[in-house]
Structure formats: structure tokens, C-alpha cells
């Protein structure tokens, strides 16, 4: 069974008298170890889909299971545990807590997972090492560059050993070179076994992944594998 199975997902929003179909029947599946981009202009429904994939929102109709969890049937507390144990979020604006050091930011999800301080420390240090920030663990976000902050955020996303890494415009706040570096890091993580879904409106970012799902007006309009051979040669 695939990691994510979505069947005829719908999401309705009521805006005054009007009903907006943010998702109008979306079906797809994403297998484990996939590295996939969801693209589309704003209003296409990609953000709504991402929120549902991340367990931040539930569908109005249809059914979606992620690593065996039926998102539509879960309580608020169950969704919180699901986000903690199964999902690793990477945001456009990093969303690091400014008062915490890099190490403490990476520890944050493990605090909510009830991991003991000693183990938390070791795991966070190991993850920062893995994203190339072993020397900057005691730095606060303001003392780090944008690319470094996003690496801390990626280390934090990995902290809960999630089944799925969900990245929302991860290169949107970075310059081109740094963006390419971050995508290289995703590539490496995917190579090591991580399943990654990137939500973006940037087709260059989408081309860096293995597969592109394109959305428009709440529907999937295309779903195809990317030809990555050229890019692969350039960056790895």
C-alpha cells in the first residue's frame, strides 16, 4: 500500500453566501520514498491539499490515509500526535523560534513527543550535523543566514523521524543559489529514504523533484514524472 492514498477529496469553504470548492474531487497516491511536487497558481487548492496532508485540516468529503491514518476520522488530539510522529513540516519563512538556539529549535517537536532531554539533545545534535550545521548548534536564528535557518528547520522536520516531509515553498524566501542548495539537501534526504512532498508555484523547483502533480481550480490537471537526468548531473 502506498504511503498516501487520496480518494475523491473535497473541501468546501463557506464565504458568506457563497460556497467555494477548494478541492473538487482529488484522487492520487504517493508511494514511499517518492519525491513529489504539487504545483499550481494561488487559488488552485494546493495549500488546502497541503494542510490536509499535514493533518492541519480535514477534508469535507472523500477519504485520505497517510501511513495508515485516516485523517478525516481523527480527533484534534490524535491529529496533534499524528503531526508530531508522522509529519515533518518545512515552511517558506522557516518559522524558527527566535529565542531558542538552533539545537533547541530542533528539539522542539521531541518535547511534544515526550522524548527525554538527554536523548533529545543527542538526536538534535546528530540532525544538525547531518544538515551541515554541526558548528552552529548554539547560534540563535538571527545569527544564521537564511539558508542556514532553513537547514535548521529541515533538521527540526526530521526530528520526529517522520514518514513524510512536507515542504511549503521551501526556497521561496531564499536566493537562487541557496535555494538550489536546499533542494540538493532534499535530494540527498530522499536518496537516503525520506518521502518528500514539496508544495510550490515555482516550476523550476518542481522540476527538481521526481514527480509533478499540477493543480488548477481544485482539481489535478496533470500528474507526470520529471526528466531529472540533466539536473541530476548538474548537482550531484
Amino acid at each position, binding site marked *: 500500500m502506498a504511503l498516501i492514498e487520496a480518494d475523491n477529496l473535497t473541501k468546501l469553504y463557506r464565504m458568506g453566501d457563497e460556497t467555494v470548492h477548494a478541492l473538487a474531487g482529488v484522487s492520487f497516491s504517493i508511494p514511499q520514498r517518492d519525491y513529489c511536487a504539487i504545483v499550481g497558481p494561488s487559488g488552485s487548492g494546493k495549500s488546502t491539499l497541503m494542510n490536509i496532508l499535514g493533518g*492541519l485540516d480535514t477534508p469535507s468529503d472523500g477519504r485520505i490515509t497517510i501511513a495508515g491514518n485516516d485523517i478525516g476520522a481523527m480527533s484534534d488530539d490524535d491529529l496533534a*500526535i499524528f503531526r508530531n510522529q508522522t509529519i515533518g513540516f518545512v515552511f517558506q519563512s522557516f518559522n524558527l523560534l527566535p529565542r531558542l538556539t538552533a539545537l533547541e529549535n530542533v528539539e522542539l517537536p521531541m*518535547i511534544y513527543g515526550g522524548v527525554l*532531554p538527554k536523548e533529545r539533545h543527542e538526536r538534535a545534535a546528530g540532525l544538525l550535523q547531518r544538515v551541515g550545521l554541526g558548528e552552529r548548534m548554539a547560534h540563535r536564528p538571527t545569527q544564521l543566514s537564511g539558508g542556514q535557518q532553513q537547514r535548521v528547520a529541515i533538521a527540526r522536520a526530521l526530528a*520526529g523521524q517522520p514518514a513524510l516531509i512536507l515542504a511549503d515553498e521551501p526556497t521561496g524566501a531564499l536566493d537562487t543559489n541557496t535555494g538550489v542548495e536546499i533542494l540538493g539537501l532534499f535530494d540527498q534526504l530522499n536518496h537516503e529514504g525520506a518521502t518528500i512532498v514539496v508544495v510550490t508555484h515555482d516550476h523550476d523547483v518542481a522540476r527538481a523533484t521526481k514527480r509533478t502533480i499540477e493543480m488548477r481550480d481544485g482539481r489535478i490537471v496533470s500528474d507526470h514524472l520529471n526528466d531529472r537526468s540533466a539536473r541530476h548531473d548538474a548537482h550531484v
Partner: protein
Amino acid sequence: MMRTSDLVASAGRALRANPMRSALTALGVIIGVASVVAMVALGSGAQAQVERSIASLGSNLLIVVPGAMRGGGGVRGQAGAGGGWDSLTMDDAEAITQLENVAVVAPSQRARAQVIANGLNWNPEVNGVTPDFLIARDWEVARGRMFDETEERQARRIVVLGRTVADNLFPNMDPVGQSVRMNGGTYEVIGVLESKGQSGFQDQDDIVLAPLTTVKRRIAGRRGRGDTVSQISVKAESEQVLNRLQEDVENLLRQRHRTREGEDDFTVQNLSSISETMAQTTGVFTALLGGISAVSLLVGGIGIMNIMLVSVTERTREIGLRKALGARQSDILHQFGLEAVTLSVAGGIIGLVIGVAGAWGMTTLFNLPLVVSPLNAGLAIAFSGLVGVVFGAYPAWRAAKLDPIEALRRE
């Protein structure tokens, strides 16, 4: 689920991030708790002072004076104040002795006299008493001795001085064995009383005790000469029988004076009931002061709520992130609730210290005993904690209920 130690660390970090704001927020509670503690301590001190000064007059004591008490007012016409008020006699005292439950009866006659010694003079109250007077008033002789019954009957020219009189007439020497002059006569000092301190505005130590017979014959004016006395102190055998004895004394004197209830020419003062009334009055006073101060504690609580609401708004994005990373509603609720409670309890502890210090200062200034019970201190802390819970609950609930999608979108 978040571990408690992580919760505490997180709350502490959030409060330290804005030290000035945290301090000012806690200040509201500090002022509230400090004023409650100080006011209650001050009130309790006043209460203890009243009880102590009334107790110092003597325990289980009834004091019979001539003249009637009208509707809670003062005694009309003390002894010697006018004709018709010399209604108490030695025979009345003798008759009271026969009643049940009486431990001691001590008639006394007051007078004023200039007392001279060492070229110094003093104008104390001179009280003609029997030796039982000291028993009735729970009073001890500090130096020398009290006169005995024989000396009293013989109208010897001897006196026992109160501490204030002794200190003023014999500043640097032992008065015992010295002599003083009163109304032209010479009296030997045979003892000095222990200090009783102030009772209300009256210095109880500003007194000279002499044998009752002596005072009647040599010192008191014309009105004091006869068989009358200005006061009879009656000590009951125990506190339980005090009220019954009061009735018995009143009935006996009505019989002897042929008066009816409501037309009495005497008043029996029950010191326990006076003490109780006074304690109740000061108790109400204390509660009033404490209540007014509690309002400021309430204002402090509203300050906490205000700042916590601001904090929730400011940290909306942080709350959204924490939820995305797996914080449950209860985690967020506990985090913000704990911040409010930490603020208020810290304020409570600091307020307690300041309140006790303030109470100490005021009681020292007003010469009152300092009364701070551990119960009151514990209550102050517990109450400040409650303020934190009550006023922190709504902001924390708002934080916990935030929609993570909305919260993450907020700038």
C-alpha cells in the same frame, strides 16, 4: 504530552524574554498581596493589643462601680463625681463575698494626691486597696512586698509603687525602704509592682497602692471618708461562671439597694464581654481593611489577564508553529496558564515579604504587636495562585483554541 519540567522551562523562558513586562505585570499582584498582608497583620495586631490590654486588667474579673450605664454609653458619674453616686459600700463588698463562685472580692477607694520624694514630685492615682486587690488583678510585686491584712486594718503608713511612679520619683535607686510624702504625711515604700503597661490611653503603672483604711482616713477627700468605696473588684473562680456571677452580683446589689432593673445605681462591668466586643469590633475593622486591599489584588489579576491576552496575540505564529509540531490543545493551555500562575505566585511571594516588612514597620510605629500567622501567609500565596488561574484561564484557552492554519498565516 509535554513533560512537566519542559513546561516549567518553557514558561520561565517566555517570562524572561520580557523581563520588564513580567515585572510590571507581577507588580499589580505584589501591591495587592502586600497590602492585604500588611492590613490584615495591622488589624490583627490591633486586635491582639486590645485583647492583651483588657486581659492585663485581670482575668475572670467583674468590676462594680457606682452609677448607672445608659444604653452603651459611658458610666454616668464615677465615684466622687457628685452626690448620690457614693452608692457602693464596704458592706456591699462583704455581701458579695458570700456569693457562690467568688474567688476574691477587693473593694478599693481612689484618690488623687501629690507624691513627693527626693525633691521630685508626681501626681499619680492613689488607690486604697486590700491585699486581695493584687490577686483580683493578676498583679505581682516585682521588688519588696505587698502589705498584709493586719497592716491594712491598722491603717499603716506604707505604700507600694507602680513602675511609672517608682521610675519618676526614684530614677537611680531602689525605692524599697525609702519614704515618700503625701498630703503632709510620710509613708514608707515597701514594694514596687511589676509593669502592666498601657491599657487604652491609660498608664496602668501610674499608680500608688496604699492600705484602704489608710487612704480613707488620711488621703481621700470628705466623700471618701465614710463607709463607701469607689470600686469593687470581684474575681470569679472560673471563666465559665463569670456571666452567672455577674447576674448574682447585680441581683444582690438590687436587693440591698432596693432598686429595680433599669434603675440601678451601680454598674457591673464584665471584662470578658467587653474584651469580646472590642475583639469583634477590631475583627470587623481588619476584615474591612483586608477587603479593600483585596480589590487591588483583583486589579492585579486583571493586569495579568490583559498582558496574557497581548502575549497570545503577539505569539499567535509561535502557537501555530507549536501546534504544527505536535502540541495538543492541553499543552498550549498548560503553557500559557502556567505563565500566568508563575507571574501571580511570584508576585504573591514578593508581596508577602513586602507586606510583612510593611506590617512590621507600621506595628513598630504604632507600638502594636506584629501578628503574622503562617495560615494567613499561606492563604495569601494560595489566593495569588488562584488569581493567576482565574485570570490566566481565558487567555490560555484562547491560545489553545487557535486554528493552526490561521495562526501560521499571521504575520
